[in-house]
Structures are given as C-alpha cells and as structure tokens.
C-alpha cells in the first residue's frame, strides 16, 4: 500500500510537471517513432464492401506494439523515484520487450516474469528480451500464462519494494495503475483524432480494438468517450468458442470479482476460484479485465464482443494478404470483428481499428496452426 501511495504521488507530480511532459514528448517522437500513422486500408475496405476502414498503426512503434507508450512513461517515473531495478509481467512478450527496451535505454536492471506456456508460444520475444539484457524468469504456476506471471511479479515487488518499481503492462492492478497506464496510452486516441480530422474532416463512427487487460483499447477510446456519436467496440478472445468454456471473454460469462488488487469482471467458478482461460493469443489470455472497462460496459458506453481463435487466424491471414500487414494475433481479433461489422455499414461510414502490434512474434504459431489444418476455420488449440 505504501508503495502504491508513493507511486501515485510521484505520478501526479510528474503529470503536473511541464518538464516531464516535454521529456515524454521527446522520447515518444525520437525513440518510439510517434506519431504513428493512421492508415486507410483501401483493399480491406474494398474487400469487405462497407465502411471505410482506417488502421491506427501502433505496430509501427519501436518494439512493434503500443506497449512502449506505457513503459517509457513508467521508466521515467522509476528514475524519478531513484529505483535501480524494474520488473514486469508479460503474456505475449510485447510488454516484456518494451520494458526490457526502456530498461536498456536508461541503464536499469530488468527482470521479466513470463508463464512457461507463453515462453513456448512467444519464443521470439523471449530471445529479444534476453538480447536486451533482461532476465526472463519462467513461471510454472497455475495455467503458466499472464495471470500467473502477474502473481509472481507482485510477489517479487513486495519482497524488493525498496529497490524495485513494478512496470505493470496494462490497465490492471490496484490504483494508480489503471489510471496511469491509461493516461500513458491515451496518446493513441489523441493522435487518431487529429489524424482523422486531417484525413476526412470529421471524426470516425466506430472505434474497434482488442481487449486483454485493455490498455490499447482504452488508449484509443479514452479521448472519444465524450463524443456520443462514436460507437466503441472492444473485442475479447473467444478462444474455442464461448460455449466451449475455453476462452477469455470476461464480459460474456464472467462475474464481478477481485483479482490482482482490483474489482472487475472475472472468469471464476462457483466457489470464486479464478478459472483458467484459453486463447490462441497470449496477450488476451487473462481471466480479468481493466476495471475501467467494466465501468464503461455497465454504463453502456463501450460494447464488448468476442472473436474466436479461428476467426482471429482468418483475419491474421486476410490482413497479411490484402494489406501487406502481418498483425499481432491480439490485434487480429479486432480485425476479425471488423470483418463482420464493416459490411453492415454504409460506405461513407468510418471505422478505426487499433492495429496494436505487429505479428512477427506470431508467425511460428500461425504457421503451425494454419499449416496443420490447411484451413483456419478448422484450427484448434495451440
């Protein structure tokens, strides 16, 4: 608790400090490569025959995903706190890589907790983290995925609280994390607004993003929450299908619960034990969701749907073939929903999809799954 209160103070002070703001802006521009483009996906639009589809190119951020927007902010805070060591959890490995990257850039010790199941399916990112000088700590507990990595990171943090800052990678955990991570990611939506106005002279009709913990989606949505004409859709991991019970669609079958220091929708059994989840995408494979998402869901402000593993793999292939963009399997869930949505809309309507990460890390898994069955719709468990 003391560490959380300290972190909140340091963060609020930094937020009000013009020097912090300009420091962030400088690194975001020259190190991360912002602003990222808002790209009109012409062939995907033609193929689906409905709304005009734009992709917010977070895959072009340094390290290949939106995660670095947050890790950059938190590493600058870590320096202000004078702590020499950072730790992180990672699922898909993107947050781990983004943390290892900024730790290398600023010369801090970095250790990343990762479930062994995720280490297997995101092996490329394990190599990247090690190349960046980080130590990757395998987590064998539970389902050996993101949830278990967070447990272990939290255990490490309380043990080494004096020397260590925990760079949590999504809008999860106890206050101030959900607020702070959202603020760091909301640069996505602010840029999208300006770029959209420049490209089309108006704001979009739909925003679509995948939701694991929920940081890329809240990052895109946050700046538009007060625009009632804009509909927002978060896409969860439908895994093998909601009916199979093997998914990570918290809003489909979850109930309110308490996990990792926050109250939100949680996939749990009738005794309040946390359920194991399944998704082809390690980044969406988590039994709870950022509390702010539960809030906007209850308000009816954001709609939540899900896409199955098979649908995500189809979208993965489609975007690669039509646009020359290999998306992360996480982001492919958002594209999968757009495949259903766009054809139902008018040709003058506009959809923005957050392409939250690139898919280099997923080519091996995708090749195995697509190759084995020869047909993405047949794809089963990884």
């Amino acid at each position: 608790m003391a560490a959380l209160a300290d972190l909140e103070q340091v963060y609020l002070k930094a937020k009000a400090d013009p020097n912090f703001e300009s420091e962030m802006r400088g690194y975001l521009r020259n190190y991360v490569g912002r602003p990222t483009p808002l790209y009109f996906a012409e062939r995907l639009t033609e193929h689906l025959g409905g709304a005009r589809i734009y992709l917010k190119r977070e895959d072009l951020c340094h390290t290949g995903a939106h995660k670095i927007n947050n890790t950059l902010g938190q590493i600058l805070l870590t320096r202000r706190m004078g702590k020499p060591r950072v730790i992180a959890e990672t699922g898909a490995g993107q947050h781990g890589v983004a943390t290892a990257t900024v730790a290398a850039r600023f010369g801090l010790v970095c250790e990343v907790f990762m479930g062994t199941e995720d280490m297997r399916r995101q092996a490329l990112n394990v190599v990247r983290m090690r190349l960046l000088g980080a130590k990757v700590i395998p987590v064998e507990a539970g389902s050996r995925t993101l949830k278990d990595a967070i447990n272990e990171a939290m255990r490490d943090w309380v043990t080494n609280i004096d020397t260590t800052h925990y760079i949590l990678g999504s809008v999860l955990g106890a206050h101030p994390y959900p607020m702070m991570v959202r603020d760091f990611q909301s640069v996505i939506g602010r840029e999208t607004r300006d770029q959209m106005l420049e490209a089309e002279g108006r704001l979009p009709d739909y925003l679509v993003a995948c939701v694991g913990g929920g940081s890329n989606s809240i990052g895109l949505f946050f700046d538009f929450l007060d625009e009632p004409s804009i509909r927002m859709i978060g896409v969860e991991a439908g895994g093998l299908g909601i009916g199979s019970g093997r998914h990570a669609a918290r809003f489909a079958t979850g109930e309110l619960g308490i996990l990792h220091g926050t109250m939100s929708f949680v996939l749990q059994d009738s005794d309040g034990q946390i359920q194991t989840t399944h998704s082809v995408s390690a980044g969406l494979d988590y039994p709870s969701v950022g509390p702010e998402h539960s809030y906007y869901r209850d308000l009816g402000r954001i709609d939540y749907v899900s896409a199955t593993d098979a649908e995500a793999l189809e979208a993965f292939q489609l975007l690669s073939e039509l646009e020359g963009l290999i998306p992360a399997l996480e982001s492919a869930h958002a594209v999968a929903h757009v495949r259903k949505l766009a054809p139902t809309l008018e040709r003058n309507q506009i959809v923005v999809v957050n392409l939250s990460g690139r898919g280099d890390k997923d080519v091996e898994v995708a090749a195995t799954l697509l190759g084995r069955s020869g047909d993405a719709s047949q794809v089963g468990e990884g």
Partner: protein
Amino acid sequence: MNRIDERFRRLKEAGECALIPYLTAGDPDLATTQALTLEFERRGADLLEIGVPFSDPLADGVTIQRASQRALLGGTTLTRILEMVRVIRSSCDLPLLLMSYANPIFHFGFARFAKEATAAGVDGLIVPDLPPEEAFELIEAAVSHGLHTVFLLAPTSSRERVQKIAAASRGFIYYVSLRGVTGARSSISDDLEATIRMIRVETDKPLAVGFGISNPAQVRMVARVADGVIVGSAIVSLLERNGGSGDLVKRAGDFVASLKAATRASQGEGH
C-alpha cells in the same frame, strides 16, 4: 465475548505470548485438517489460523501455494470449510480465524459469509489482499455478527497507516515481519523490536507477528516482543514432507508443542 479477545486477555494475565499455527484447509484433506486442529489445541496452540485455499494466492510463497493447489484439487470449498468448523466447534474451544483472499468471500457474499461463518463458530477473519480502506462493506457485515477482522501491517507502513489498521483491526493486529510473501526464512528482521515499539505507541491492541517464522529459536525471539507468534509455512512444509505417513498428526503436534514451549521459554528469560 469473542473467543479471540478472551484468549488474549487470559494470556496477558498469565504474561504469556500466543502461539498461532496456520493450516491450509483441506491439505491434504479436510478430515486431516480437523484432526490437526484438535491435536494443535491439545498440544498448546492458543489460536488457529485456517487458510481458505485460493487459485491465486498472491501473498504466499511456494509452500502455501502448493498446499492451496493440493486442497483445491481435493475439492475443498469455503462451504465445506465452514461445515468442518461447525463440526469441530462442538469439541474445540480454540479461537479460529479464517485467512481468505478477497475473491472467495466476495463471491460468497460478504454479509452471507459473516453470518454463516459466525454461526459455524469462526471468530475472526484475515483478508491479505483487502486493505481497510476497501473493506468497509466487509467490516460492517463482520461487526454486525461479532466476527473480528484482522488487518495486516507491513514494515513499510507509515504512522498514519498504523493508526488506520489498528483502528480497523479487532482481536489483534497482524504484523508482517518482513518484506515479501509467506515462507520459512533463515533469519528474522533485526529491527523488529524497534518497529513493534513504534506500533505500540499507536495502539493497545494485541500484536501478532507472522511471515517467515519457522523454528522454536525464532519463536523465542519474537515472543519476547510480541503478543502472538504466527507460524505457517514451516507447519505446512512438515505436512508436505510427511504426507501419507501414519503419524502425520502426531508429528505436526510435536512440532506445535515445541513452538509453544518456545513462547514460554522467552517469558522465563524476561523475568
């Protein structure tokens, strides 16, 4: 009067420090937990902390993580734990506290939990992942049924935090003697005595110390300055090592008796 208050009052009169063993309910099964509870009472335990197994025990080290896994695999649920307490209560006077992570009791319903736990004979509740500022609803439900809520103080706690936790705690205050998770350690913190002196300036409530205390020598040290000593992982580890052995309960009882003797030894030295 709540059994916890009654017990600490009697111990204070006798100038004695409480020994508070911990068991994960249902490790390896609830029948064994029940037998161990009665044995521990017989061998000198003053209170007992019963862990409700949880899939994601954030505050626990590997020993209790494994115990929780075993208990869950065996089908242990909160409902069955309360049933076990109800059965034990007819032959046991030991003050019993449940230690549960927030979600199982939140899912059960705070009000329903407070009512049914008290009716079963539970005297207190420790929720390691629920700080007092987030526990209003739970505290209210607990107070209305006479169930004591015990909150955790960490070495990093500020003076304001000590006051807040002392105010919200009933029965005693749980002082976490180290930075980290549960699990046996070879040494305990040197500044324990100074920290406890600081806490005592803020509160008269009994202070029990836990996390990392694993042998009679450490118990003796802590008992010099605290009102209670909590020993968890060392007991759970003993049960793990002796799993399947016929005299498991007796062996665990012997260990508890040696820990209790250590709490008395320190009192002797004090005189």
